[in-house]
């Protein structure tokens, strides 16, 4: 499903959470990155027909979010950042209930519930009460409910938060598989999660500061990632002057990965940028621009 966002602004009272955002997502898997409070959840809630935009236009698969919300909802799977279920129901019952609400045809209902339970690896817990689930299990159940009804659009807000590494990989693969036939919109803080996305957007303080592919994002840090090795005594000076991406201690020396437009130290080695480096570069760039514009 194609998503068109044009000049979307969302105000919470005086506070502008989204500021004239425009996005065009044609399909596949699309990732939203951004620091806390950037507006990712706000954008996703608007797309999921939960929030009304203050201004601007949002169309999903040709349906307007404002006037044709029900057509969108019929095609939507949504997993919020924070959610829960009625603790007294068993997982299977709960999903059956949801399947009816999502208009899954009666004949496919049972099979589909079982299928999504299998996909999130919860089949064995199907007859357990949801109230007894661990955080990760509940998260997986949340994913399962979003998958019910074979949605054409899947919006998942930080879906991998709280999952153990094995489940995270499992889920990532699941999304990749799904994105072959549906549009998947995913927000996350874990950069590794978006490596398989066809497209990415980085939000910062309600603005889109980057749109492109993962490799393009990584490229934003091209010629700006360095590896340095300094003794402990000098480390605080380095840390103060440069953005540190990663560090490692080896017998009294600190080996670090730095972000810097020019070679920071004489013996600094240029490195090929990773996705994470690009993300940090984009955010920093934006922050710097803003500081300049204030000045």
């Amino acid at each position: 499903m194609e998503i068109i966002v044009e000049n979307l602004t969302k105000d919470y009272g005086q506070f502008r959470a989204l500021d004239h955002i425009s996005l065009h997502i044609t399909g596949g898997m699309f990732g939203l990155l951004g620091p806390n409070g950037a507006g990712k959840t706000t954008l996703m809630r608007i797309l999921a027909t939960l929030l009304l935009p203050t201004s601007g236009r949002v169309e999903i698969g040709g349906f307007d979010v404002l006037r044709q919300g029900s057509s969108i909802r019929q095609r939507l799977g949504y997993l919020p950042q924070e959610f829960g279920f009625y603790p007294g129901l068993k997982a299977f019952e709960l999903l059956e209930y949801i399947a009816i609400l999502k208009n899954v045809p009666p004949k496919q209902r049972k099979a589909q519930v079982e299928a999504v339970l299998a996909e999130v690896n919860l089949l064995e817990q199907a007859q357990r009460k949801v109230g007894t689930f661990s955080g990760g299990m509940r998260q997986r159940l949340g994913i399962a409910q979003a998958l019910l009804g074979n949605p054409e659009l899947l919006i998942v807000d930080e879906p991998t938060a709280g999952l153990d590494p094995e489940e995270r990989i499992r889920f990532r693969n699941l999304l990749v598989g799904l994105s072959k036939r549906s549009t998947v919109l995913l927000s996350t803080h874990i950069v590794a999660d978006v490596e398989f996305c066809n497209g990415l957007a980085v939000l910062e303080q309600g603005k889109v500061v980057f749109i492109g592919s993962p490799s393009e994002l990584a490229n934003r840090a091209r010629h700006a990632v360095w590896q340095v090795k300094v003794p402990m005594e000098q480390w605080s000076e380095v840390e103060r002057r440069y953005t540190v991406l990663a560090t490692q201690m080896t017998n009294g020396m600190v080996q670090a990965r730095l972000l810097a437009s020019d070679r920071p130290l004489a013996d600094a080695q240029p490195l090929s940028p990773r996705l994470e480096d690009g993300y940090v570069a984009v955010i920093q760039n934006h922050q710097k621009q803003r500081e300049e514009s204030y000045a």
Partner: protein
Amino acid sequence: MLKAMFSRFLVSFRTELRLLTLNWLYPLLHVLWGALFFQLFIGKDNRSAQALLETTVGRLTIGLISLIGLFMAGVSISRSKRFQFQEIEETYPTGFEVIGGRWMAVFVTLILFLIEPLVIAAYQGPLTSWVEGVSVFLFDAGLTIAFVNALAWMLLLRRNIDRWGYLILAAVWLAFLLGPSMLSSHFPPASLLNFMRQGVSFYSDVWGRLIYGTQPIWFNLFYFGLFLFCLAGMMQIVSVRRFHSTSKIAIGLIVIASILAGWGGTRYVGGFQKASFQNRNELTLNEPVHVRITGYQVVMDLANPRIPHFHVVLEVLNLWENNLEQFTLRLNPVFSVTRSNVEVKHDGDWIDLHLSRPLAPGESTLVILEYEGALRVENISDGVVETTDFIDPQGIRLTTGVAWYPLAVSNGQLADHHEPARFSLHIENNPGLPVAANIPAVGENHFAAEQVSWVFLVASPRLVVEQIDDVTLITASADLQPGREMAVDYSRALRAIVPFFPNANVKGLILMVLGEEGGLPAYTPPAEGYPVIVTQRYVKTPNTWQSFITRTIASDLWFMIGGRLEDTYNRPVTSLDQAFEAVVGFLNLYRTEQGNAEKMLTRFQNINESGMVVNENLQALLEIYQQGGEPAIATIVWEMTRKSAELEELPYDALPAWIRSIGTIR
């Protein structure tokens, strides 16, 4: 589409019902609920099953379920939010049907609270009464619960409720619980706001809803309208929130609901205006009454029960010192006189009669009057419009006060009695209604007695007349069992007391256990030979009950031997009243100790020792009884009634001596 919507409704209903009822609190609530009703009513309220459902038990049920309903609705509405499921749920392709299903689940959960009161009522019996009452109860309670539930949903859906919200709701509940009842004395139509039906009882044991006319229908229509309104309101809120548009169905429903509620409300309130208009008639006759009616022969023809026809022959006595050509009687204005042997002019509440031949002083003449009309007199009582007097194919209730037969009364005595007269009442073409009166039946549909000063005629399919020893029991079929017990009590008391009033010439006692008071006179004088007791069903508390029986019988017998009795309220108590009180006190002791003089005296002394003022009048009577037995007391009673004027003048402290002097004369 519709089918899918229905299955969403159903699944939402089923799930919510499970979540509500499979909580441990719910069965606990039922246990408490059942215990409450058991504690309050079993063995303590002897109304019939239907009466319980229509009054005490029913009202309590509806009132409390309304309160429980507010909280249940709150629990249900806030559930998704509490468990953070709302965010997910709202992205599903659903509409009002989900909220509708949940509303329905709360409704059913609440309806299940009707089981306990129904069981209590069934236990009380009789079964026929329960069967008759159950559908109306379910409908009334169901409507109230539906409305309260929808109202709570509408209010709580609009605002996300917090703890204060519940407090406010509870306060509103309390205001509606108490407010309308408190207002009803100043502004009776306020009873319309009494959605929990506190004090709004459309029920009579004898006539069911008949005496409330169409008022219950308007009341219920009003609430049906409001219920629809709230339902539509819910729809509208959901539509705006979820679809950002107004729902056409909701708007349509709101229009219909407003019309229904407006219509029902206006008609209900209109009923009060009509009733108070009827009651505004101020009766004044500015001339003294020169005649007395010494005999009545009334024939009531019910060939057309809606417009009964009366044929009345009056024996009119001229009390004036002059020849009488013209006099005025009172007759209800709804009747039109169709025929008479004298010239008649009907003017409002009065008919002027012109005799063709003047009536000499002390002379009597027969006046024939025929009249007809539909009689229905409404009154406002406890915030409800009820009919006190009516003739209807389904029942009759006539009290003297509405002048359904001509009365020779003046301004000063427009009340409920007339001068005692010979009275005969025939009902012709009775459509098959069991019928009874406060005067003895002398044949089928025929009542007659001497010395009749008021006539109370009742007829209803639910009426039962039964002879139990010397007591004629007249009661509603549902009250037959407790009525019989009362009749036995009265019969026993009558036998014990009559020997003290040998001149009363008692032939039997008429006991009307009807539970309706509208239009009845405060004091119900007996006809010749027949004490009349008109009472409600009672809750037995043996002591007070037995002395109540003694007092009511004694006062009628006192009257029948020609004694005077006056309402002791608002006037100084005289030795005459004291004398009567002493007699009642004596009779009570006599009955408790089966006439054993020693025991009576001991009991009397015990009572005195317990710190009460020594009743010297009673002591005097006891002493005389010890010496002279029943005849001695009978003589004193007789003398008391003869010499009432003397007793009224007598100082209190002289009364014991007076009693003793009479007792020793013999």
